[in-house]
């Protein structure tokens, strides 16, 4: 019984990890309708910023997280102003090509700046090891992941899905001219949304790097996972991303525990089945 609960707990934690990694993409792709694969690169840079802050400047782990959010958010604004804003009206494939190009460039930049090998990531001792909770021995970092993932989910769902800002972003995306005429500063709102999306992606990288390994190839390795989570959840819905992350996370861990012979299949098969069943994602608007 205890092993079932531990496996379930680990699945939930993995689900939150998937959510944390993909929520940045969910914001730009879902809310802005911009296929920004470079979110994966923002994640990678988030990881590097964290590592650099901690190792070169002695910043504590928790303090490094807001730094990551701000630095990567600012970087997103720069990229948005310089490049992305010229591509709002292009089709999906053009955006894919543009942003995959940026991903390639980011890999070379990271190799140049931080070298081609994996980074050493030291976690503070209070986040390592295991803790006994209700008779179960649970990994400390996973407890932390669940807590921070849940906090992010609540803030984002309340802050972006249910508020004025969210409505404004949607209005701007649906019709820029009308939104502009209504007195909304579309440029500012777009840039802000990108900053939030980028900052979240950076956080995702910073929070997952110690589990996933951090090297210049990070974006290409995890891009597919980001796409899967966001599309299974449904475009434009943060709660969908959360549900997809949790569902796939639990299924993956359970699958590996009970049916290890199926290997990594579980997540792919579920994705295909889900997209055939609901082509616009679990919570996406089915048109």
């Amino acid at each position: 019984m205890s092993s079932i609960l531990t496996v379930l707990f680990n699945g939930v934690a993995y689900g939150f990890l998937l959510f944390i990694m993909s929520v940045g993409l969910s914001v730009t792709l879902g809310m802005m309708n911009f296929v920004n694969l470079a979110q994966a690169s923002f994640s990678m840079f988030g990881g590097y910023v964290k590592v650099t802050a901690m190792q070169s400047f002695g910043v504590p782990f928790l303090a490094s997280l807001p730094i990551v959010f701000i630095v990567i958010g600012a970087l997103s604004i720069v990229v948005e102003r310089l490049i992305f804003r010229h591509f709002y009206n292009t089709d999906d494939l053009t955006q894919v090509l543009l942003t995959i190009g940026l991903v390639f460039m980011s890999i070379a930049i990271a190799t140049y700046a931080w070298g081609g090998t994996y980074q050493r990531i030291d976690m503070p001792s209070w986040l390592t090891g295991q803790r006994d909770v209700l008779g179960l021995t649970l990994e400390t970092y996973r407890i932390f992941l669940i807590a921070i993932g849940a906090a992010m989910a609540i803030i984002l769902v309340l802050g972006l899905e249910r508020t004025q800002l969210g409505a404004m972003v949607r209005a701007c995306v649906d019709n820029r001219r009308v939104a502009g005429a209504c007195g909304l500063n579309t440029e500012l709102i777009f840039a802000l949304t990108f900053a939030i999306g980028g900052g979240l992606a950076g956080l995702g990288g910073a929070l997952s790097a110690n589990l996933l390994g951090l090297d210049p190839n990070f974006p290409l390795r995890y891009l597919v996972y980001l796409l899967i989570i966001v599309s299974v959840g449904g475009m434009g819905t943060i709660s969908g991303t959360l549900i997809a992350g949790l569902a796939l996370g639990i299924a993956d861990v359970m699958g590996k525990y009970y049916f290890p012979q199926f290997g990594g299949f579980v997540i792919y098969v579920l994705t295909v089945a889900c997209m055939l069943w609901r082509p616009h994602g679990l919570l996406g608007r089915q048109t």
Partner: protein
Amino acid sequence: MSAIERLTPERAKAATGYFARLARWNVYEILFWLALAGMYFVPNVDLVLMSQIFIWGLFAMSLDILLGYRGIPSLGHAAFFGVGAYVAGYCGKFGWTEPISALVLAMAIAAVVGWLTGKLVQRVTGVGLLMVTLGLNLILYDLVHRSTDVTGGDDGMQGIVIAPVLGLFRFDIFGRTAFWYALIIAFILFVIARAVVKSPFGLALVGARENPRRMIMLGAPVEGDVSRAFALGAALAGAAGALLTQTTQFVSPNTLSFQRSADVLVILIIGGTGRLYGGFIGALVFLILRDWLAAISPVYWYFWIGLLLVVVVSFFRKGLLPSLETLLNRWKPSKADGPTA
């Protein structure tokens, strides 16, 4: 309102002539293929690289049938390439060494796989379609990669023997046979694909790309057409895969990788969709540049390839070929307007 006009014979003839003109080969096309063949005689040219460019061009063209003509973006096109590659590999391994018939078999099996894929996804559009094709690709890759006993797995399949083409030309280390074999097969399949897209079926594909709802209200079997387009695209992709196996006498899960699916999409979009030639132009530019960049800047060539993509989408929004056409049309504005079907 003007009085009702009658259809004059001249007008009817002009209309038929219009379609005939669309199907006719123009001088640029002939020059293009002659130039490809002429590459053989360029001193010190890398013949093997050229043969792989033809293969990638054919592969990208097969995606063009789906993406360019039918408007279906597949993120898993390498699956069909890989099916063709492995069928050709098994043929060579188990004694069916004659390459041309093995290639036809590879196409046939890839077509069946494509048709079934089409059946599965014919009601799905947009992101769902992207993710389903991607997912199927990943599943197939995983299956082949893991099944070491059956496929050789990650190490690749060993013991593939390919007999000389027509019993005369063996695959030599200079890549001479590979060059001509890949070029001629690619050309034959191009001619077939070209005929298909200029046929009524091609018109129906473009119609469904432009407006599927209207096609339904014309009574068109749009869903069946999706399967047929997938079968055709898969057959051509399978041929490209078989060509790769036969010219390299080797096959590995690499032929099925997501990386390949992404690369072929990139190549096609760089070249330009909906023209069949876009894939070949894209393959020429992409592979030659990549080879060159990897040689001069081994560690950082990713940066330059990335920059190339950014530049292409910034300045040649629709790909290189359409930009080239615009340029040519500017020189001779009298060219009759014609759609791309």
